[in-house]
């Protein structure tokens, strides 16, 4: 895949390769750009290096080849688990990143209130994580990153552990947030319908070592309604992605 030179890119991968110390080659020649207003989802078989790519983007891992350009000061990152601190209430968890970034107390309070409203957790500010459902925990995790007003948001398969209906609700809320906040989103998932429903573009990754083997522009208008999932064009697009994904396994 040739790199499409984009000077306004918020996140740029240039020929990324990753070989772990045990000799496992996880990624090969990953090159693509992501700009504000783009929501790109990567689908691929288990163990193909999707999460590794996100860790490289965030700086948690150093690639063995190539380079990444991104502003890591205000990077939004939603993990597979909500990673909430159990000893902090919802509002204190949401406040954490602003605290780590040294934001003053008054501004923190405003950001926390705003983020909690954005994800619909009003009324739960003083609850501890142990009393929240899986979906609410993920909302809290989203709200925590939103306090940074991140220009780039990385999602590492965040909704994999919640039930189907909650997952659909969270998909709808995330794409609304994306339109409202206008960040550049990079999303990892195993679910093709989730990928097609939320994204402006879907990238298909091959089995290990992960390479980008196909790219689909998703034409549906935002905001996307839940009914879109029953649309014939939506099903056709999911079918196309599925065929490529099956091919990438072989």
């Amino acid at each position, binding site marked *: 895949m040739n790199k499409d030179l984009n000077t306004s890119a918020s996140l740029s991968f240039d020929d990324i390769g990753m070989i772990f110390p045990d000799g496992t080659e996880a990624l090969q020649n990953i090159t693509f750009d992501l700009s504000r207003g783009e929501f790109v989802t990567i689908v691929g078989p288990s163990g193909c290096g999707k999460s590794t790519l996100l860790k490289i983007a965030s700086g948690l891992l150093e690639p063995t080849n190539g380079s990444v350009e991104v502003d890591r000061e205000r990077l939004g990152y939603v993990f597979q688990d909500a990673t909430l601190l159990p*000893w902090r209430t919802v509002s204190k968890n949401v406040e954490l990143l602003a605290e780590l970034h040294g934001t003053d107390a008054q501004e923190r309070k405003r950001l926390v209130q705003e983020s909690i409203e954005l994800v619909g957790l009003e009324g739960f500010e003083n609850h501890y994580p142990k009393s929240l459902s899986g979906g609410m925990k993920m909302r809290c995790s989203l709200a925590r990153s939103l306090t940074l007003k991140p220009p780039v948001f990385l999602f590492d398969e965040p909704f994999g552990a919640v039930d189907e209906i909650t997952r659909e609700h969270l998909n709808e809320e995330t794409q609304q947030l994306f339109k409202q906040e206008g960040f550049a989103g990079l999303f990892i998932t195993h679910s093709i319908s989730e990928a097609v429903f939320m994204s402006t573009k879907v990238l298909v990754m091959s089995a290990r070592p992960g390479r980008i083997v196909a790219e689909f522009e998703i034409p549906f208008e935002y905001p996307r309604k839940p009914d879109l999932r029953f649309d014939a064009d939506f099903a056709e697009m999911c079918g196309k992605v599925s065929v490529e994904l099956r091919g990438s396994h072989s």
Partner: protein
Amino acid sequence: MNTTKQKRSASAASLSQPSKIHRYTAAFLPPLILGAGVIGLWYYISFGLLEEKRRFLLRPIHSVIDVGFLDGDNRSESLKALWSSTEVALIGLSIAIGLGFVLAILMSQAKFLERAIFPYMVTLQAIPILAIVPLISFWFGTGQRSRVVVCVIIALFPIIVNTLFGLQSAERGMHDLFTLHHANRFTRLRKLMFPAALPAVFAGLRISAGLSVIGAIVGDFFFGKGEAGIGQMLKKHANRLNGEELLACVILSSALGVLVFWIFGVIQNKAVGRWHESNSATS
């Protein structure tokens, strides 16, 4: 309509929430029944199994209360000794907590420090106190200071092991979150590792609190110079075959152990009970 609803919700609440009496009964009845059984067995052994001339081996409970607790002289002597041992236990426990925290924090910060320090902590814990009694008396004398040293040696290990385990218990994802947002070592320790460690820290504190009482009594047996502790009293009454006073001192020692264990349980509940998943801290 509204009233009916309220009544319904009130009765639903009363059905789902066990009443206070029911909860207290469930909590206190089993130990009371067992306690009554033990007292019955005690009387059976004292009067049923032991002849009068051998009854000093287990005096009946009313006689223990009479001589050990209601006799003014005996009571004040025992309580004074108990207070002396409590002082030793508290000083020893405080030193063990301070030292244990510092060592556990150091070990949590660098793997090579953990590898260097931990084997010596295991060795220290494995040394029988009896084997180092002469050394302790050479270095610290035969008074309160040596009793405190014994207390520290006995109480230190659970604090170190539990604190270290707790500090290392924060999940990888949480550490990644702090790494992503450039948290320094101190911030990570203060906002992540230390709060995550609290449940394990309290588990260690409760064990060590009980051990510190044992340490104070054991120390008393070997280092009796100065104000007598409860260990000295136990020794004295055992030598004189004062069955009642001996049992009264045993009961007081146990009560002290239970009290410190309970106090740390209450603190644990206050500190982590609201958020900890297990919520199993009992007071």
